[in-house]
């Protein structure tokens, strides 16, 4: 399904500000895999997702979806197959358009947009049905501007928009991090339900280790542009937060000894 082969990405290459964000990442996901991603700040998690979605072009390596290379395609073409939800609730929706207009935009993912009507009765009843699942009352507010919704509602809407056109892949980048704990919990539950319902191949970055362990069937830990731990199936089920913390402490230990050596 997804094959990330030895990708490298540096920002400001060849200058003194050079910042290597990805230093050779390999990752394989099968159809229907739900993989959580953890790692310290600056580990390269967002860069990895941005590279898969075509926002960034890798300096080396390849990204394949269903065997086809997508790393040379412009982002809007990759978006036909790859949907994403951003950390910022404002980022995933068009604030000055209504709920139904936003949904219609997302429904058009993968189609050529012509002069057909943006909204039809059939679309509307489909939207109502999909929004009812969220239990946010949004199905009765189809003509409300999205800018008037709360962050949690916008994020729930973004999630529906990302999933209902059945993309081949779903990328979630800390999509609950800007919300208060209760709403983050709600969005997490919705994520689990929507992904399970559609069997979507999903890559989800989270800063919450408990969540990373509870959700999905795979887990990767990143550090300084590399995947340093990969857990699947039973290994993941058996792992605890303490185990993950221990892995982090190992890295810290390495860093400390590096520094001691340099001193």
């Amino acid at each position: 399904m997804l094959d990330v082969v030895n990708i490298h990405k540096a920002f400001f290459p060849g200058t003194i500000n050079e910042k290597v964000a990805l230093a050779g990442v390999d990752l394989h996901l099968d159809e229907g895999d739900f993989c959580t991603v953890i790692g310290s700040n600056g580990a390269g998690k967002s860069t990895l997702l941005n590279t898969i979605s075509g926002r960034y072009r890798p300096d080396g390596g390849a990204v394949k979806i269903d065997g086809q290379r997508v790393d040379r395609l412009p982002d809007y073409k990759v978006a036909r197959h790859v949907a994403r939800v951003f950390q910022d609730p404002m980022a995933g929706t068009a604030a000055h358009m209504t709920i139904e207009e936003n949904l219609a935009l997302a429904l058009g993912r993968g189609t050529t947009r012509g002069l057909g009507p943006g909204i039809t009765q059939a679309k509307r009843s489909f939207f109502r049905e999909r929004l009812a699942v969220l239990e946010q009352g949004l199905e009765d507010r189809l003509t409300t501007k999205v800018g008037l919704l709360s962050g949690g509602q916008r994020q729930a809407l973004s999630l529906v928009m990302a999933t209902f056109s059945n993309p081949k892949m779903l990328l979630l980048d800390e999509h609950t991090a800007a919300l208060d704990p209760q709403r983050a919990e709600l969005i997490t539950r919705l994520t689990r339900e929507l992904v399970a319902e559609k069997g979507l191949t999903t890559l989800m970055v989270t800063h919450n280790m408990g969540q990373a362990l509870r959700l999905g069937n795979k887990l990767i830990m990143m550090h300084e542009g590399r995947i340093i731990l990969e857990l699947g199936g039973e290994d993941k089920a058996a792992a605890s937060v303490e185990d993950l913390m221990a892995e982090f402490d190992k890295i810290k230990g390495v860093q400390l000894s590096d520094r001691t050596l340099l001193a």
Partner: protein
Amino acid sequence: MPGAIELGLLYGLMALGVYLTFRILDFADLTVDGSFTTGAGLCALIITHGGNPVLATAAGFGGGLLAGMVTGLLNTMGKIHPLLAGILTQIALYSINLRIMGRANLPLLRATTVFTPLSDRALLGTLTSIVLFALVLALFVLAMNWFLSTNLGFAMRATGDNESMARANGINTNTTKIIGLALSNGLVAASGALIAQYQGYADISMGIGLIVAGLASVIIGTAIFSSSRVAVATAAVCFGSIIYRVIIQLALMVGLQPNDMKLVSAVIVVLALLIPRWGVFANVRARRRARNLPAEPDVTAPIEDRDPVSGLVKPGA
């Protein structure tokens, strides 16, 4: 005053075009000053060669389409800043317009224009012509509303509203920008073609500073008929265009010279931008905003409980 209303209606097409770029695409397009004259020049050229005035107006529209497309290509493929892309096309058009017209001024005296049937019956400047102009403009407003409610129209609105969201939903925002700029300048040029026929000549300088009139119409119209609905805003900018021409007419009546009008237009735009932020108006606006505020803001600052080294949050934190 009927003349000012007629002008306002004819310039209304230009205001619709400016609305499309300025408000829908969020693109400050300065091509307008050049493409308006392109439309006027092409139309005048064809009419003086005995062409059909309706076709001549359509040709003007076509010239505007091309001009807008050039700005769109400069901005999207050439990655040139929107303001600079517009200025470059505008300047290039100055020479092209002179080539089209052959000289700086092309009179249309005694030629048959789209307005000849009206002027022959002495109907220009009467209620009849105003109603007719308004009906034609209303057709364009309806067409624009229809366009903006199609899938392509939605894609264009999303491009101006949140470009990265649009791309994340598979929209080629380069294409939507180019189409939007082309349509916008097509409308502007059609407006130029009509104005040339109405005043009886095309002139190389007729488009200078016109973007300010377009912006004034959009800002005045949407400030008076404040509504977040696109279908209302399109009609509002047409009213804005009429109000703008009436203000200009009043300025002329109190003794200002035609040459002072550029200053007057700039002042009108500055006032239209500043007044809504002052005194009573600001209060009205604040109250209107408050009614529309989200019911339950729930976005918190990024969580501060992170472990400083790992950046992770332990469960329950």
